[in-house]
């Protein structure tokens, strides 16, 4: 049984059809990439899976639960973590505090406990700090814990977004263009982190334009074009798929 099933999903914004009848599955332990030209509907699909928006038609089932109709914070709590194409880090907060927000749903000290710094609250704060540092360590940026998030170079910003999502203990992690703007060295470091995350048992779905990165890291690739799925399969197959080449990749990949 797949951990995530996207079933006949369509999304219309007024007269614009962003997604049409898209179906695919994500299996536990996979790294799956979603590719396609700009405007193919990749980010829209991400927003549907993370319940930021609801599909016009179709259903999205995660670990036996219907995502459609959930709020996005609820989707996070059932196990879907995500990063954003345009970084949504809390720039003027510290790197560590960014990750700590990711522990929100895994802790429960309320307003009154915070007001009066109860001993239980202090213990929980300690646990939040430890878990957050572990999340930073998983992507290898723990030495920047005290820095302001806004001061990090781009590569580390992307890793911080990932660490923050990891802190929520997701079962599926959605990465929206994690390699965008990174140099080769940073991209390699990112690929290592993503593989390690997968090896730790987290299923990864990513949107990416960097074809070298996608083909190198993915177990399977889904290709979208004008909101339709035009191909799905292992990277080698996708690279030789005529429709994909015609629609998107160009003649010489």
């Amino acid at each position: 049984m797949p951990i995530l099933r996207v079933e006949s999903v369509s999304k219309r914004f007024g007269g614009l059809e962003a997604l049409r009848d898209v179906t695919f599955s994500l299996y536990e332990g996979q790294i799956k990439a979603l590719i396609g030209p700009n405007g193919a509907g990749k980010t829209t699909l991400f927003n549907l899976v993370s319940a930021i928006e609801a599909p016009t038609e179709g259903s999205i089932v995660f670990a036996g639960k219907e995502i459609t109709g959930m709020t996005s914070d609820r989707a996070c709590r059932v196990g879907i973590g995500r990063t954003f194409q345009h970084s949504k880090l809390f720039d003027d907060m510290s790197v560590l505090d960014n990750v700590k927000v990711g522990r929100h749903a895994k802790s429960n000290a309320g307003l009154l406990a915070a007001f009066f710094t109860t001993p239980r609250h202090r213990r929980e704060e300690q646990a939040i700090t430890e878990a957050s540092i572990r999340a930073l360590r998983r992507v290898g940026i723990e030495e920047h814990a005290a820095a302001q998030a806004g001061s990090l170079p781009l590569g580390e910003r992307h890793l911080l977004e990932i660490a923050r999502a990891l802190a929520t203990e997701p079962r599926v992690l959605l990465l929206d263009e994690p390699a965008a703007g990174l140099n080769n060295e940073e991209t390699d470091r990112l690929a290592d982190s993503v593989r390690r995350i997968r090896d730790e048992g987290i299923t990864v779905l990513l949107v990416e334009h960097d074809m070298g990165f996608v083909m190198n890291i993915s177990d399977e690739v889904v290709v979208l074009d004008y909101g339709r799925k035009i191909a799905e399969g292992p990277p080698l197959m996708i690279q030789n798929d005529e429709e994909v080449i015609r629609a998107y990749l160009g003649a010489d990949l």
Partner: protein
Amino acid sequence: MNGGRLLTFARRHSAFAMFAVVALGAPIFLNNAYYLSVLAFTATRLMISLGLNLLMGQAGQISLGHAAFVGIGAYGSAIMTTRWHMDPWLAMALAACIAAFAAVIIGIPTLKLKGHYLALATLGVGEIVFILLVQTKSLTNGTDGLTGIPALAVGGLRFTQYNPRAFHLLVWGVALVMLLISLNLSDSRVGRSLKGLHRSEVAARSLGVDTAFHKVQIFVVSAVFASIAGSFYAYYVQYISPDSFTLTFSVLLVTGVVIGGLGSVWGAVWGTLLVALLPEYLRQYDDYTNLVFGILVIVIMIFLPTGMIGVPALLGKWRRGISGGGRPSSGAAMTEGTGTADGGTV
């Protein structure tokens, strides 16, 4: 053991401890009853500002109708004590519950709005409450106001205008507790999540923060702070009328919080002290009081866009400018030295 804990507390909250000593000790050096009453009002204003600072500074939501909650506290206490002869303390607690309930009812629909729309919606709420205070004459006595409100008392100790030192300790004690718990909040799970949703609601939600709930929750806190302040006000002056809870008052409250600075809880303190005490000082200019005050507010906002909590950073910049070097010594480190920074700027 106990001394050790006290020491840890003093170290963590050194700025708070100093401020508390000054605030509570002020009556020792002040004999003038008028000054003492100004300080008492300042304490009630600080309570309101702290709630607004949490709402606006931490959570990034605005309320242009906070006079409504002050009014609920004041009128709630006045009506329950004068008409129903309830105990003043109990009336204060019940009024705070009413304010909290009202905040839930108002907050659920309005906090879905953003920016200007939220400002307008809360402004509307403020006006509605004002109209209710004027029109429900059977309860509020309309524009004539309510008189004969009893004073707060514990045993034989009555907290009235004629016992200004006792009242001073009471209101400043409560205001200081509110300050301390506000400071505590900013470094906690809920506080961080509020800061996060302020910066990006979409991101905060994707991290599992129930932003709708937390926005309403902090709105309720700010309403309760305002209501308690309103009750103290009513018990102190023992006469209230709707004039004290106008839109102008709501705007003045927001002004104080913004002038002080939204980036830190301490902004509420400095802003309140300025907005509450400066007009007293400016009284010597008679008719020009408001003009001078307005100009000062504009000047402060031009030179200190982050509010008065930005003063240390500004001084640091000037000092670097004078010494001629572009030393990268950070304003943040200097702000920390004065204990005014507990978070970033907005």
